[in-house]
Structures are given as structure tokens and as C-alpha cells.
């Protein structure tokens, strides 16, 4: 399959990045608090991108913060089977799902369902400049939450289908299908 053509371990910049992450984790576990700053600097922006792009409307920073607090609280259990960034995305996604479940239980809040995808996404309209970008933004906003998650992780972060499957809790094949369906939907909306 195509993923076999990806840069082999050792020469892939991401593999090198994983090694840096592991070294920083080791330093932090040994008592070096500056390693925590370095780890947050390396991953906070990606976590904020993911949260915002899948429709998290408010308190993105708080969500990112909660993700790191939870990760550092159990970092000794991080076995390195996936990259640290994949692990952080997984934690963040669980937190977002918990938030949405809590919002659904509150009757005064608007629930976040599949059909609300376009509505929740409009919160970011103001930050997109240019006609092409605005149309692309609107097209992505029309995706279902799961399609948008997969599309974002593939397009913005360049994650493999295996990594995406680990994060969203599906299979590699399902992640691939979700990505291609999302891409087709975006193209159709742009052609309308």
C-alpha cells in the first residue's frame, strides 16, 4: 500500500521528532521541569489546530491545557507504541467528546450532533481571509464531525491512516475511506 513509500524510520523527520519527544519525557521524569516547557511548545499549536478545526468553539486553550495536564499526570504509562503527538491527540479527542456529552446533558445548551456540523463550524468564519480560503473553509465545515477529524489530521498534520485510526478509534481502512469521502464532499461543495 502507499504508506510503504513513506520515509523509512530513521530518516523521517517525524521519527526524529519522536526521538526528541522521548528524550524530553525522560528528562522530565528525571526532574527537569524545563523539558515540560519544550514538550508543550512542540505540541500545543497542533492540539489547538485540531480542536479548532473540528469545531471546538470556546476555551480551546483550556482544552489544550487539560490535555497536557492529563498527559503529564500519566506520562509514566506512555509506552511509546505511538508517537507522543498521536497520544496527545487521542487524549484531547476524549476530552472533547466528554465535553460534548456534558453539553448534551445540559438542557439549556445547544446539543452538538452530526447535523450541527455546519452550525458549530461557523464560529471560525471570521478568521478566514480570501475568497478561495473562505469557500474551502465552508466546504470543510459541511463535513460530518468524524470526516472533519480525519480530514484535519490527514491534511493539516500529515498523519498516516494508522495514526488517525488510533486517534479516532477505527481501523486503518476505515480512516482511509473517511478521508476520501471527505475529500470528495469538499470537492463537490466547491463545485456547487
Amino acid at each position: 500500500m502507499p504508506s510503504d513509500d513513506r520515509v523509512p524510520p530513521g530518516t523521517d523527520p517525524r521519527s526524529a521528532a519522536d526521538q526528541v519527544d522521548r528524550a524530553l519525557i525522560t528528562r522530565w521524569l528525571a526532574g527537569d521541569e524545563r523539558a515540560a516547557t519544550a514538550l508543550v511548545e512542540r505540541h500545543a499549536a497542533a492540539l489547538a489546530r485540531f480542536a479548532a478545526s473540528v469545531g471546538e468553539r470556546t476555551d480551546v486553550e483550556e482544552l489544550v491545557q487539560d490535555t497536557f495536564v492529563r498527559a503529564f499526570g500519566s506520562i509514566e504509562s506512555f509506552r511509546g507504541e505511538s508517537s507522543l503527538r498521536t497520544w496527545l491527540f487521542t487524549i484531547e479527542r476524549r476530552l472533547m467528546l466528554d465535553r460534548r456529552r456534558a453539553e448534551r446533558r445540559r438542557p439549556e445548551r445547544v446539543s452538538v450532533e452530526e447535523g450541527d456540523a455546519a452550525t458549530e463550524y461557523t464560529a471560525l468564519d471570521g478568521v478566514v481571509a480570501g475568497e478561495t480560503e473562505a469557500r474551502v473553509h465552508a466546504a470543510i465545515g459541511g463535513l460530518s464531525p468524524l470526516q472533519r477529524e480525519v480530514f484535519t489530521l490527514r491534511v493539516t498534520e500529515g498523519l498516516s491512516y494508522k495514526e488517525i485510526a488510533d486517534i479516532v478509534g477505527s481501523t486503518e481502512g476505515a480512516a482511509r475511506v473517511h478521508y476520501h469521502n471527505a475529500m470528495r464532499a469538499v470537492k463537490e461543495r466547491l463545485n456547487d
Partner: protein
Amino acid sequence: MTDCLDGDIRDQLPDYVHERLDTAARARVAAHVATCASCAAEVELLGAARRVLTAAAPRVDIARIVATLPSPPQATPRLGVVRPAVVRRQPAYMRPWWIAAVVATVAIGGASIAVIRGITNPNLQMPTPTAEATVVLPDGGRIGELSDDDVQSLLDDIDQFDGVPDENPQPAVPALHPGGTL
């Protein structure tokens, strides 16, 4: 425009945009994109989508996030940082009121058993109360005849007495018979 029929190439386009293909694969995809209008358009779209999604992300305050993180396991306490002292609660069985309650329960329970046995056993001779209550010491003397030092010594002995049972009393659970009756 119809999608390119080469699914493998299309699958690799995001990796191509992120420059995560090895040299051979990159050259193959680049050659394809140069001749395929559909894939070239998709590469353009991937770039635009990446820009849009990146621009939509708010900035986060790194220092604020770091300040909330737990200390590393082997970190030495930071100078000037006062951590609240951990107040350990005494177990219930070590508190005075609990000890007093246990002593009272044992005393009342013991007295109740003695009374019940006296009622149900007619052969048991109950002491006849005397008109005047007197406390007789083991050596035959009366408490009123003790000197102040003797009284103090007696009180000290009482203080030494450990009235607390070694083990906590077990809760009495009524047996449930098969019919569901107690």
C-alpha cells in the same frame, strides 16, 4: 473535473504535500502531478485546506499551560514555593469520642447481660443492696480511709487501664434465611 483513477497516487498526495515520501515515491508522485490536472488541482486544494485549518487555530499561552502541569516525579521543591501541608485525619477509632463510645457500649452491654442472666437464672444470687453504699477495697479497707497519696496512686492506676479493645467490633449482620426472613 473527474477524479484521477490512480488511487495509490491520490492516497499519497497528503504525504507529498507534507514532504513525507521517500525520494523514489516523491519523484513518482511529482511526475504524475505534472501531467495530471486532477491531482494537480487536489494538491492545490490540500494546500489551501491546510492554510485554512492552520489559520483557524487560536494561539495558546505556553507559559500558562506549563504553570498548571504537575511537577516531575523526581523534582526538588522549588524555592519560594510553599506547598500546603498535608493534614492527615486521625482514624475514627483513635478519636476520644469513639473510644468513649466503645467503653460505654461495652459497659452497658456487660451490665445488660448480667441483668438478663440474673432474670433467667433463678439460682443466681443477686447481691442485696445495702442501705448505705460503701466501696470496699481489695485489702478490706474503705475508700474513705485512703490518704490523698493513696487516692492519687489509685487514679494513676486507673489512667493506665486500657479500656479500648484490641480490635474493632465487627458489625452484627442478621442471618437471612432461605425464605427471605430474618
